[in-house]
């Protein structure tokens, strides 16, 4: 509908004034009638889905009709028939252009090859650029949906020893900061949490954020309906109120405007709904409900655990840099007060915009720049093609000139031609944009904020129009100037003047050189990303994601006691399913961090025997997770020393723990950790003996580092939120027919294939439901999906840039090919004479190729220089590789040379086949 409205501007003003509203209302009525009919058919079971093709056809027909009548009304033909004859107007300036357009259309039709290449080239360039621009527009250019978003900052803790940025802040630290800092007017924390909603005897899992005082004030957000939290609700005991997200309100409560005051049973307790948040509110990330999280005395001992999201509003007139200075000072004080938990504590104050968009800004802008370069190449190519034609057409221009056409007429002809080509390219490009936007939405990384809100609106369409006009100008200006110059020359020269002249050739040479240079820059950029990606995948995750299914379940009774029995029985039941080789349980699945707001990495404070902590809130911290005895086998994490947990490690036996290698490096650098005691809490019986060391695991994807971690046996540290890791049976591909495979073979056989974990999803769901229907499954996914999610942004950047580079290289090759064919064609006479005089094939080939090679080498040198200047910009996108990686530079330069020389070789070959007799006779 929007596009149709736009197209209506094509119509003559008088028609538009009189019929616009009526026309739109009729289209609307027809559209509604069609949808009604389709829905009826669907309900009657005649069709299963609403037909997208039919809907698309409907709109395309409306669009085309408007374009057609725009032309017909102006020409006064094709509407009524015979009566139209009396409508035709006499010649005017517009009419002249119209005649030109008709002439151009006829001329373009006689050269379908040229037209197709030009329109396709421009269409691809315009479409890709516009699609990329729509992503940039949607993500970066639109304002954030928070009041005075410039004054909102995110506060995170930093380990000043190595500058490691923590995940967030601890409640106790931020609370102290909020109480003393003058540069912040509000400061609040948010904690991810899961709540179970009981409704009609069924359990639903809700993603929730628990937020402390000042959270909504810091963000400047007000409830859409009702109100946000009040101070007394943010103190311990007053917290049984919730705010609903807009989506939850709509989907679960049918957008009931009387929702405020309704009581919900969450985790067995009654909560009162006090409001609904605006639709675009998703902070710190999308969730179903927001509930209060009072800062409590129990936060004090967890001072070192920086795993809450800290958000603050700057005091009026204060900049983020000023707040940073004050917080640096406060951090020093906090570090002095709690020397171990806050050892080397620092804070980092980041403006919200940078926090949300900082990671995606550079790649998006780089990609937009890259695709803009592709558009430039496309325009240069079309300009080159037109120059070649223009040269051949100087005879035509001379004739027109002789018949009385002024150079302005001829200029207009050439301009109309460029405009028509660009308009056709622009229309094609718009189609490509629609496809491209869908593609970006599909392939785009999940965590890029607002990418899902991508749409084609008036700004994007304006951009497309500008891109089309710009490329028309770029592609048209050189040929137009050339044409008017040619006219002068052609009128004075003879009819033989069909050579392009050295000036045309020089111009085209430069265009082609620029194309090669730009293509090489893009190719090198893409090459660097590809090699980074390759390096990244070389990193060992520390476990095997292939063939593993991860099933996250929260199971607790109404007193919040974990249902260990449920997990035990489920584990046994899943273990007997066909195709399952091993099952393990863990509280914190690697790679799941951040994927689900429930699975943030947890940390624990502990003591080491012989080291005394200065105060209660001051002990070393390590990540922890509880695992069962099957976990390390199911995950494929190697045991480095000692033993894994066993069923004998139960609540009655002596407490034990395992640690990872990073833990050993940090806390037992020169000792044997096995048999050492870890102290938890203050009671004497809370010490645990280290019985084993597991291999390091990269919890947060390929580019993350392993941190010190403690593993506790699940039986001694029960938890309600657990993830089943289900390893599918592996089999030896080579001996598939020989029958069942023995246990353990998966580890020893050289060629093993793991089963498809998705095939198990249904069976696992059924099994869990059979064990206890009241427990809700939170997430069920193959681990490889989790793994790929972590690389999604990189893959997106790499794939897009690589696609642009391939496009650029193809366009540049077409440019080289076109130029060389043209110059061979122009020199047919000379070549024929050379051949006649005995010039051998090799000499002619060398002569032509030498010119091509000179062009290519100049282009490549320019490209290398350009890359040296530009690849530095993408430093932060690279991994394990320098921006000036000589191998990448060399390889891609060689590739570009080979491709370009090949493109030059084909016409050169043709030159050697010139038959001297034909040439001489024709002269």
């Amino acid at each position, binding site marked *: 509908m929007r596009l149709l409205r736009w197209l209506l501007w094509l119509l003559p003003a008088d028609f538009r004034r009189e019929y616009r509203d*009526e026309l739109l209302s009729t289209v609307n009525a027809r559209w509604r009638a069609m949808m009604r009919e389709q829905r009826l058919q669907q309900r009657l079971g005649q069709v299963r889905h609403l037909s997208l093709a039919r809907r698309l056809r409907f709109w395309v027909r409306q669009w085309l009709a408007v374009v057609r009548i725009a032309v017909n009304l102006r020409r006064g033909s094709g509407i009524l*028939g015979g009566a139209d004859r*009396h409508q035709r107007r006499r010649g005017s300036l517009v009419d002249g252009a119209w005649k030109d357009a008709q002439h151009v259309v006829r001329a373009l039709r006689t050269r379908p090859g040229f037209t197709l290449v030009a329109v396709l080239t421009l269409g691809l360039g315009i479409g890709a650029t516009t699609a990329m621009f729509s992503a940039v527009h949607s993500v970066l250019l639109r304002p954030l949906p928070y009041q005075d978003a410039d004054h909102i900052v995110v506060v995170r803790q930093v380990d000043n020893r190595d500058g490691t940025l923590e995940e967030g802040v601890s409640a106790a630290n931020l609370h102290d900061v909020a109480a003393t800092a003058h540069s912040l007017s509000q400061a609040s924390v948010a904690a991810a949490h899961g709540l179970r909603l009981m409704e009609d005897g069924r359990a639903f899992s809700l993603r929730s954020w628990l937020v402390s005082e000042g959270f909504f004030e810091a963000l400047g957000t007000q409830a859409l309906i009702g109100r946000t939290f009040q101070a007394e609700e943010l103190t311990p005991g007053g917290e049984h109120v919730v705010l609903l997200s807009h989506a939850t309100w709509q989907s679960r409560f049918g957008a009931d405007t009387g929702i405020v005051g309704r009581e919900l049973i969450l985790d067995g307790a009654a909560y009162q709904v006090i409001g609904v948040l605006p639709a675009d509110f998703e902070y710190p990330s999308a969730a179903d409900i927001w509930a209060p999280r009072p800062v409590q005395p129990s936060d004090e001992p967890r001072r070192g655990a920086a795993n809450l999201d800290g958000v603050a509003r700057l005091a009026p007139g204060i900049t983020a840099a000023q707040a940073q200075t004050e917080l640096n000072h406060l951090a020093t004080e906090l570090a002095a007060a709690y020397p171990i938990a806050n050892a080397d504590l620092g804070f980092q104050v980041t403006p919200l915009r940078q926090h949300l968009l900082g990671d995606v800004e550079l790649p998006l802008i780089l990609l937009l720049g890259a695709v803009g370069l592709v558009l430039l190449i496309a325009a240069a190519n079309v300009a080159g093609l037109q120059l070649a034609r223009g040269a051949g057409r100087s005879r035509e221009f001379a004739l027109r000139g002789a018949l009385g056409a002024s150079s302005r007429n001829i200029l207009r002809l050439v301009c109309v031609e460029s405009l028509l080509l660009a308009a056709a390219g622009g229309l094609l490009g718009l189609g490509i944009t629609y496809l491209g936007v869908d593609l970006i939405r599909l392939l785009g990384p999940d965590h890029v904020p607002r990418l899902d809100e991508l749409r084609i609106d008036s700004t994007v369409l304006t951009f497309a129009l500008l891109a089309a006009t710009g490329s028309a100008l770029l592609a048209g200006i050189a040929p137009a100037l050339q044409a008017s110059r040619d006219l002068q020359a052609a009128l004075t020269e003879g009819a033989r003047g069909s050579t392009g002249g050295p000036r045309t050739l020089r111009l085209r040479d430069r265009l082609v050189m620029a194309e090669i240079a730009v293509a090489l820059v893009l190719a090198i950029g893409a090459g660097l990303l590809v090699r980074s990606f390759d390096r990244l995948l070389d990193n060992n995750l520390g476990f095997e994601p292939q063939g593993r299914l991860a099933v996250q379940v929260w199971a607790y009774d109404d007193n919040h006691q974990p249902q260990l029995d449920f997990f035990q029985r489920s584990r046994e039941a899943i273990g007997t399913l066909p195709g399952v080789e091993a099952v393990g349980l863990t509280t914190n699945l690697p790679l799941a961090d951040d994927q689900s707001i429930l699975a943030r990495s947890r940390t624990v404070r502990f003591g080491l025997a012989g080291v005394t902590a200065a105060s209660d809130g001051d002990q070393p911290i390590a990540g922890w997770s509880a695992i069962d005895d099957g976990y390390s086998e199911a995950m494929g994490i190697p045991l480095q020393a000692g033993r894994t947990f066993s069923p004998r490690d139960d609540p009655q036996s002596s407490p034990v723990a395992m640690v990872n290698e990073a833990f050993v490096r940090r806390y037992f650098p020169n000792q044997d950790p096995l048999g050492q005691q870890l102290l938890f809490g203050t009671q004497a019986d809370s010490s645990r003996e280290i019985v084993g060391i597991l291999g390091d695991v990269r919890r947060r994807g390929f580019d993350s580092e392993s941190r010190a971690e403690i593993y506790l046996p699940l039986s001694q540290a029960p938890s309600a939120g657990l993830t089943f890791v289900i390893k599918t049976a592996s089999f030896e591909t080579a001996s598939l027919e020989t029958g069942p495979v023995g246990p353990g073979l998966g580890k020893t056989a050289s060629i093993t294939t793991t089963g498809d974990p998705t095939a198990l999803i249904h069976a696992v769901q059924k099994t869990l439901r059979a064990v206890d229907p009241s427990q809700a499954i939170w997430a069920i996914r193959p681990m490889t999906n989790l793994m790929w999610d972590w690389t999604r942004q990189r893959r997106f950047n790499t794939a897009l840039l690589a696609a642009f580079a391939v496009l650029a290289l193809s366009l540049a090759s077409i440019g080289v090919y076109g130029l060389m064919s043209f110059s061979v064609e122009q020199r047919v006479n000379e070549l024929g004479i050379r051949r006649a005089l005995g010039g051998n094939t090799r000499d002619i080939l060398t002569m032509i190729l030498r010119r091509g090679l000179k062009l290519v080498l100049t282009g490549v040198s320019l490209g290398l220089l350009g890359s040296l200047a530009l690849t530095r910009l993408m430093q932060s996108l690279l991994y394990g590789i320098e921006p000036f990686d000589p191998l990448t530079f060399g390889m891609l330069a060689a590739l570009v040379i080979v491709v370009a020389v090949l493109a030059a070789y084909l016409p050169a070959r043709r030159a050697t086949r010139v038959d001297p007799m034909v040439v001489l006779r024709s002269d």
Partner: protein
Amino acid sequence: MPPSASPHHIADALPLTHVAYHVLVALATKNRHGYSIIKHVAECTDGRVELEAGTLYAAIKRMRDEGWIEEATPLPGTDSRRRTYSLTEWGRKVLRAESRRLESMVELARQARVLPTRKRVKA
């Protein structure tokens, strides 16, 4: 030439485009608004002819300019945004002339035995 100067010889207006013909036929039975014309044409032709709104209104504009149709008092119960159109005497003459022309052409086909001589109603 001003648009209101309609041709004095009906023959000058022929042949009609199929869109113009369908619109005139639709208005011959009763006054209609634009959407009703589209629906009527689709029904009469079993959905084979679907007029696009743009095409229709271009034809309506030109027919009004030519004086074949005119705006009529709105039918009761229609949306006020929709205008109702009626056929003028002149428009009826044009339609009749075009129908005769078509008839005579069909007759030629009959004589050439392309069509059976049995009379058929044009769809």
